[in-house]
């Protein structure tokens, strides 16, 4: 496979973007990505595009991308793979360039979760995520989907709600200085612990907000990279992992096997081990999920995540900063855009341009896990030396 790089990355601020539909968000994110290319790029240089979106507003997604961004002469494919959509769209574009089919391609992720009432959006989308006869009528909503895992995880490993709250405190703090973040305010442990309960053990501040947003990346084959930049970010590895779709069939709910599978593939492809990662953007849709991710991604041993968060090792300035952007928790979570925006953040981290810069970062990892905790996508990036 040919080596593939990120040569441009951009996004629009995540939040309640009532003024913008998909057809307004897509061109704004694409324009930001095009503008970030060091030596400039023409729209006609793009040879193919992938749109990551769970449920595009404004109608037919691929068509809305081609139409709103003036890309009628290239193939556009929509990727939907639950919350792993963004990083899976990156994976598909990287494979197409790696295969030699295209030299330059666009990846855009976008979703609007605030297009319908707050208690309706994700519930409406559940119809495509749950078995219609068996699980849907039980009301296994997105937070419950993860709470069943985290309840068992806390039970087996002596993890407390305070450990969960520390994740919210860290990620909210990071978001304050990220101009693209949805929730730019700090919280303390007491405020998190005393918030209204959403889905035991998750209170309001343990949960991601419902965000609108879009993010875009431009990928290029190594042999054309020099035309666009001297500082590309290399896509060194990617992986996609699946798992059982019904929670009753998951034998050990203290882990996400989909993440373990995706991670194993990505590390093998990159030829590195978890110890080499300098900065990571991981799927913290709910605080406890970030802790489980530390273990599934190999950042620590089983049951050790609580020690990492207690000691601040994943805070800015720690051994391995996680979610310097604020994460899904505070930057926001428009599902199709989330994984793409993680790569936007890491593109900037590996080029030394991030709002919350991790000094000397060379290796970075982006991770999503979603659906009925049955799919995970991981991307491993390396900066230019």
């Amino acid at each position, binding site marked *: 496979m040919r080596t593939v790089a990120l040569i441009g990355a951009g996004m629009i601020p995540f939040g309640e973007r009532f003024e913008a539909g998909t057809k307004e968000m897509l061109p704004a994110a694409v324009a930001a990505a095009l503008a970030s290319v060091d030596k400039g790029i023409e729209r006609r240089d793009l040879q193919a595009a992938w749109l990551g979106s769970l449920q595009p507003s404004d109608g037919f997604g691929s068509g809305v991308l081609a139409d709103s961004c003036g890309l009628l002469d290239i193939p556009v494919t929509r990727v939907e793979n639950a919350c792993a959509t963004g990083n899976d769209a990156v994976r598909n574009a990287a494979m197409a360039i790696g295969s030699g089919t295209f030299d330059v391609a666009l990846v855009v992720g976008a979703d609007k979760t605030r297009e319908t009432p707050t*208690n*309706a959006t994700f*519930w409406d989308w559940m*119809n495509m995520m749950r*078995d*219609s*006869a*068996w*699980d*849907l*009528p*039980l*009301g*296994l*909503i997105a*937070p*419950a989907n993860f*709470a*069943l*895992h985290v*309840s*068992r995880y806390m*039970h087996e490993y002596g993890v407390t709600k305070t450990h969960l709250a520390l994740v919210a405190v860290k990620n909210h703090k990071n978001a304050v200085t990220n101009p693209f973040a949805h929730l730019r305010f700090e919280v303390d442990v007491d405020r998190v612990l005393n918030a*209204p*309960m*959403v*889905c*035991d*053990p998750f209170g309001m501040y343990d949960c991601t907000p419902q965000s609108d947003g879009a993010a875009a990346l431009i990928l290029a084959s190594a042999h054309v990279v020099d035309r666009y930049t001297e500082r590309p970010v290399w896509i060194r590895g990617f992986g996609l992992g699946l798992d059982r779709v*019904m*929670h*009753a*069939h998951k034998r050990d*709910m203290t882990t996400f096997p989909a993440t373990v599978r995706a991670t194993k593939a990505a590390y093998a492809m990159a030829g590195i081990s978890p110890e080499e990662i300098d900065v990571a953007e991981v799927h913290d849709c709910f605080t406890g999920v970030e802790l489980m991710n530390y273990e599934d991604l190999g950042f620590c041993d089983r049951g050790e995540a609580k020690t990492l968060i207690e000691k601040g090792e994943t805070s800015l300035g720690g051994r391995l900063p996680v979610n310097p952007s604020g994460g899904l928790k505070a930057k926001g979570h428009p599902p199709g855009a989330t994984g793409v925006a993680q790569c936007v953040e890491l593109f900037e981290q590996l080029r030394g341009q991030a709002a919350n810069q991790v000094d000397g970062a060379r290796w970075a990892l982006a991770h999503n896990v979603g659906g009925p905790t049955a799919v995970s996508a991981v991307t491993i990036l390396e900066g230019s030396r």
Partner: protein
Amino acid sequence: MAVAAGRSALCAGDQLCSKIVLVTEEPDFLQGSPAPAVLHAALALDTGTEVEQRVGGGVAAVDALSAARAGTLVIAVSSSEPAGAAAIILSTEDELRSIGRAYRSLPTRIHPVSGEMVNYADPRLTRERGNLAGARALLGNAVPLAVTGVGSDRKRLGVDTAVTPEAAAGAAEPLFALAEFYESGQSGQLLAVEDASAAMLEVAPSGKVLRIDREAQDADGLPKLVPGDVPLSLPAYDRAFTAKVGFLGGRCTCGELSYPPRTVCLTCGRSEAPTLVPLPRTGEVYTKTTIRTSVPGLACPYSLAIVALDGVEVRVLGHVTDAPAGNVEIGERCELVLRRIALRHSVVDYGYAVRLIGGRQ
């Protein structure tokens, strides 16, 4: 409730059930009722078992009892307060004999086909021209041991009743009274009153109480239904029905047990319809959560639990039932009981819910 009562009667004895009569005051459906199929699947009945549905209260229940033959399971469900259900399976036709019936019309409680229940707001008229007049029309010189359908007004009839079923009303009350006859070994007459109609039974001393399960739940603090609907696919409902309402797993030729039943075995890879087998109905809570946000179409808040069933490698996900939301812990002992899971586009969706039975492993 009907399935719980029917299961109590059937599980406790060895009497074969050849017919079911279901008496309900307020049937959920005039057409498209799932009741016969749900009773068949949930009680694991022989496919030839007839299910007859009757509408009415205590008099309708007594009519059903007096017309029943040996092997008939009569289930009566009260939806008026206090709600409840009771079931009786008859072993001989001589146990219960009708000795009188008086149908009169004074519609003080009306439930039109489309609309809410209307109660006539005059207790004195209801009592003197309705219930008690109906009772007196049949009473004559008889001295029944039990009078149902009149509440504490039974004293006004001047009859000293030895049997007074507690916490019962409506269609199920005569069945609760019969259970007390049998428990105390008495024989005598039972007078059931419903509006202005009445029916009387002679109760032979041959019956015995197989089992009494009492379940009660305080109506205060119950979850509230959030406006909205839960999407429904009727083909998916149909494919799941037998295993879901019967609580049946799929047993592959190789021995692998799956739930919901799989067509392709995970162990041996066979691709054939598995044999449906009953699953154990007790187990232990593996994990749980309580949903306190509002979910359209569901009664909120509610708790969910994944239960590891006893003795098999099967776990099931279900609502926690018969307890306030949040009262469930990992490791608690529980049983699986048939419950109404959701109302989806007016279709009642039945499945199994988790009831805590006390204790931990």
